[in-house]
């Protein structure tokens, strides 16, 4: 049943979503794009892009988009439930057993995991950049947006601004 499949797949991804919405990109690419073939890498990036403009947490939004694509409204719901459930369970366990969330063995474990997350993100980002930055236009947009982020401008504004710019250029040319 596709709803269960969506829930379980995103549950698995939710379990490894250390470090924020972007950190799951490698896992989404591996599981959703390559294994399940629920969307293409292109579509996945598109969802991330749109996710910049939607309210709420990006990993939840991306899950929602993929869920909707596969199975409409309920698909969206099950995918979303899937991706947030691991967090709820883990935090509830931590909250009930640990009065102080600063146990040293946990910290060592998590610090190790952070390294893995960095490795995975860098690797995935590198592959994506090789595929998607193919000419000077792309490079210019990449560097431009990167520079803008250093100015502490919100992602929403950057993407909206860029969108307006692109639409303006495309429809005037």
């Amino acid at each position, binding site marked *: 049943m596709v709803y269960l499949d969506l829930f379980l797949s995103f549950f698995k991804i*939710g379990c*490894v*979503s*250390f470090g*924020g919405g972007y950190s799951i990109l490698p896992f989404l690419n*591996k599981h959703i794009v390559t294994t399940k073939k629920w969307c293409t890498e*292109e579509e996945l990036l598109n969802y*991330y*892009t749109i996710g910049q*403009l*939607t*309210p*709420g*947490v*990006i*990993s939840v*939004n991306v899950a*929602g*988009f993929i869920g*909707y*694509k596969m199975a409409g409204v309920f698909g969206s719901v099950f995918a*979303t439930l899937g991706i*947030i459930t691991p*967090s*709820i369970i*883990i*935090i509830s366990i931590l*909250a*009930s057993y640990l009065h102080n*969330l*600063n146990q*040293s063995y946990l910290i*060592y474990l*998590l*610090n190790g995991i952070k*390294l*893995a*997350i*960095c490795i*995975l993100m*860098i*690797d995935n*980002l590198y592959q*994506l950049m090789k595929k*998607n930055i193919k000419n000077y236009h*792309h*490079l210019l*947009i*990449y*560097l431009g947006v*990167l520079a803008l*982020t250093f100015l502490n401008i*919100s*992602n929403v504004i*950057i*993407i909206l601004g*860029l*969108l307006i710019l692109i*639409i303006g250029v*495309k429809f005037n040319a």
Partner: protein
Amino acid sequence: MLEIFIYSLEFIKIGLLAFGGGLATIPFLKEFGLNYQLFDLEFIVEMIAIAESTPGPIGINMASYVGYKIGGFLIAINFSLALVLPSLVVVIIIARYLKNINHHPKVQAVFKLLKPATLALISAVLIPIIKISFLKTNTILKLSIAIIMFYIYRQLKLHPILLILICGLLGLLFKL
């Protein structure tokens, strides 16, 4: 009972107003914590550190934690659902619309140009993640382990989850 209803509404509000990524929820979480005297900024900072290390976005972590403390597992679920409800609604509306316009070549062309932008945003978020992961303690040791594991990961084509497990164990081993 009333508390739970009010807090649920608050989390729906936070879910609606926080745009652009996990950290966007933080100012709203801070306001919520202070208004209802549930927690202070220091606690949020602790949660940020934890949220970097536990699965899931900080918003969900906070909602779950506060919910659990107030009323156990069910309320943790309750507040988390409240947080994602606005997202779900908006995503479904947009996805519906997207389905109809996605095939338009002009739309696809626009997306093609936005991709490098998204990659830039991901790159930008990677920088603080790298700082947090490497720069606090044991930098050289962490860097060495990371470089070696990166090489092993590529060469052996390790499954990402295996990489996480191995690195986690290395973290314990070396007391990173």
